[in-house]
């Protein structure tokens, strides 16, 4: 009895929910970016590489200018370039998006590792990082403490979710964006270039993935970069995109769910084997994907 109470209090502690918010943020940002390309009909698995580049150039900028916001700016710039590069190959030259995504991931690991080891002018750890929000009154309200003391990008993500939702579903641009993926010919008849929308989607995805990377290295960590530190977050983000059917709000919730299970997994290690807890996020992925397939089948049957 005592044991089960222990498990309960360890799992549902404030720390769990704080970690959920922190670690869901990079996945969520990338997933919102991925939703943009998904709507535009591009299967983008290059998010992993874009996150990694954002993480590295964030640290580099932070080191060079001794300011985390300069790091953020450099990361965003590189994100835009990565998005343009992706669109150049996928949209302009019509290369296979799957292959280009893979190539981008490999390229990002090679490039960041090479630059970090040979050309990083100083120490790629302990550089200026993004500030945390600190509102004293939040600490006094029970339950709201968990949303205090988070890095600024955590809160920015909330705004981005709303903006992305407005953009996709409430503006003509969003309408065109969705049409460019679903019915490009119709869009062309309406006099709007689907290619242009795909370019915009790629660049938006690059920007959001760079933000995700910057949160990882400058928000969660103290301006620290290590080789391949994105550790498959881009792929988890991709799973969130599919699960949420590219809806930014749902994608954020999916990312939160991953963050939650990761946090629980970590805390469950005191009670069950870490080999099992390490599987939790991936098990959830499989369950989610099964759910997506079942949902699709049901809808199909209904329509028939």
């Amino acid at each position, binding site marked *: 009895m005592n044991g089960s109470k222990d498990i309960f209090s*360890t799992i549902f*502690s404030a*720390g769990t929910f704080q*970690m959920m918010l*922190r*670690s869901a943020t990079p996945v969520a940002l990338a997933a919102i970016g991925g939703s943009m390309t998904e709507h535009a009909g591009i299967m983008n698995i290059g998010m992993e590489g874009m996150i990694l580049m954002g993480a590295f150039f964030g640290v580099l900028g932070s080191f060079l200018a001794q300011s985390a916001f300069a790091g953020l700016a450099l990361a965003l710039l590189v994100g835009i370039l990565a998005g343009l590069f992706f669109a150049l*190959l996928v949209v302009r*030259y019509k*290369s296979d998006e799957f292959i280009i995504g893979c*190539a*981008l991931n*490999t*390229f990002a*690991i*090679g*490039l960041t*590792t*090479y630059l*970090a*080891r*040979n050309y990083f002018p100083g120490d790629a*750890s*302990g550089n200026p990082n993004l500030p945390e929000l600190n509102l004293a009154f939040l600490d006094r309200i029970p339950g709201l403490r968990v949303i205090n003391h988070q890095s600024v990008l955590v809160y920015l993500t909330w705004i981005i979710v709303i903006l992305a939702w407005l953009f996709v579903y409430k503006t003509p641009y969003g309408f065109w964006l969705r049409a460019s993926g679903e019915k490009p010919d119709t869009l062309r008849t309406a006099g709007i270039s689907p290619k242009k929308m795909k370019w915009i989607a790629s660049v938006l995805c690059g920007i959001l993935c760079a933000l995700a990377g910057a949160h*990882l290295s400058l928000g*969660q*960590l*103290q301006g*620290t970069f*290590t*080789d*391949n*530190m994105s*550790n498959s977050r881009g792929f988890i983000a991709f799973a969130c995109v599919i699960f949420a059917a590219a809806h930014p709000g749902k994608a954020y919730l999916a990312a939160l769910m991953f963050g939650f299970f*990761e*946090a629980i997994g*970590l*805390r469950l*290690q*005191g009670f069950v*084997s*870490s*080999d099992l807890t*390490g599987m939790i996020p991936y098990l959830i992925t499989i369950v989610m994907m099964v759910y997506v397939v079942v949902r699709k089948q049901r809808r199909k049957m209904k329509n028939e």
Partner: protein
Amino acid sequence: MKKIFCLLLALVLLLSLFAGCRKTEGENSELRLALVVAGKFGDRSFYDSSKEGVDRLAKELGVRVTTIECNNQSHDSQMKNAADKADVVVCVGWEFGNIKTIAPLYPDVKWIWIDNATEEPIPNVLNITYAQNQGSYLAGYIAASLSKTGVVGAVGGENQDVINDFIVGYKQGAKAARADVKVVTNYSNSYDDPAKGKECALALADQKADVIFQIASAAGAGVFEACEERGIYAIGVDSDQKYIKPDTIICSMKKEVGSSIYDAVKALLEGDASKWGSTWVADMSNGYVGIGYGEEGSVQQVPDELKAAVEEVAAKIISGEIKVDTTR
């Protein structure tokens, strides 16, 4: 034009694959040595320590050194690649289990396997294992002695024999210093994700741990950051890591991978290959495992009396009076 452009871009992407792949240094010796690490350099501990060892060989003894990073994949083919062009191949990491079938294929090559041992001795393989449990015993002893809450923690990279060998020693040492101490542990399940390492340490700090031992390679950088932010102590691993955060890292459990490689190869150059075909346990008695308190003049959190007590415990371990648990 379009095709050429695409080809060029593809080439650029391909080139990045080779970034940091292979490097050769040192020229004035007949001996060619290849260092193959299971993960990647840049962890500022285990793998970097092996690199320091071979760099010293290149500099002081003129050995021609090649390094290969496996990046946690294709260990077998990298071993063969290395053996094709070297006289001595040093494999760093418990992952190189297939050395038992590959080494006999290259009878003229002298192999060194770090951190694990073949079940049957192979004439041209020298296994070097480390008594990390002994050093971790001392780390646990220090942690428990300095803990105010009575809870100490350890973050492992993965639930696996070598990592657990650190942890059992750490637990036993902590209990020896203070019988009522509680030891909490978790695993980051990744050696190169510092954000995950940081979360692991924060989870332990939430359970009131106020000294945390990291055994997670590059993910350990996050452990140090978590400890710094919570104002608690951290203990480094493999290399003397105090310089990374002198105010947070109180000491490091040193596992001198580099010097053990250096000494083994130096002996080989002097014509002594007697160690090959056996397992050499580098432990506290021969000085390859121990506690480091950083460079002289750095801030010290461990008081001199405790250091003296640790010395005594170390002497007892060497004499065999204290038997340290092991998972091996």
